[in-house]
């Protein structure tokens, strides 16, 4: 399957989807860990997609989102941002609000 098709499939099948380095249980990078912690704190169920297991995916998700860094959070197929944006939204209380609005929380 083409990498873009694969990514589209992943984000269609998972309402909240975090492309990250490592897994939710064992993040391999501080930025991925920070976003994981925010999602766990908000008690959000999310799909962790480990880009370190697939070099095509690691580059593919950067191209797909036009975003050069990992982690990347998708909610209902919408790209929400990387670590800085997610942390900022969380600190301002906007992330919880957004997830409620999307009927995730």
């Amino acid at each position: 399957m083409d990498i873009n098709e694969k990514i589209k499939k992943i984000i269609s099948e998972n309402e909240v989807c975090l492309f990250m380095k490592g897994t939710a249980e064992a993040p391999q990078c501080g930025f991925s860990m920070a976003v994981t912690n925010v999602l766990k704190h908000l008690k959000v169920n999310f799909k962790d997609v480990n880009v370190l297991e697939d070099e095509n995916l690691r580059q593919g998700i950067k191209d797909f989102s036009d975003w050069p860094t990992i982690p990347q959070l998708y909610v209902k197929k919408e790209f929400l941002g990387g670590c800085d944006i997610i942390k900022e939204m969380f600190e301002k209380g906007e992330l919880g609000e957004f997830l409620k609005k999307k009927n995730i929380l």
Partner: protein
Amino acid sequence: MPLPLEEIKKLIKESIPDATIEIKDLMGDSNHYSAIIKSEKFNNISKIEQHKLVYKSLKGKMGNELHALSITTEGK
């Protein structure tokens, strides 16, 4: 390969001339930075678009030579 702080500032300034940039080398290793960037270009666009403007100014270095730059952007 580390990227010097002044080089980052220069690249951002080239693309976003009115930017005010506060940048810190967090570990003193020219590899982990944190920056607060303010520009009129950020007015009325989403956070994602703001960050993309900064990433674009770094011309592909983000995620390559530049390992870690956390960004806070604001309009002015």
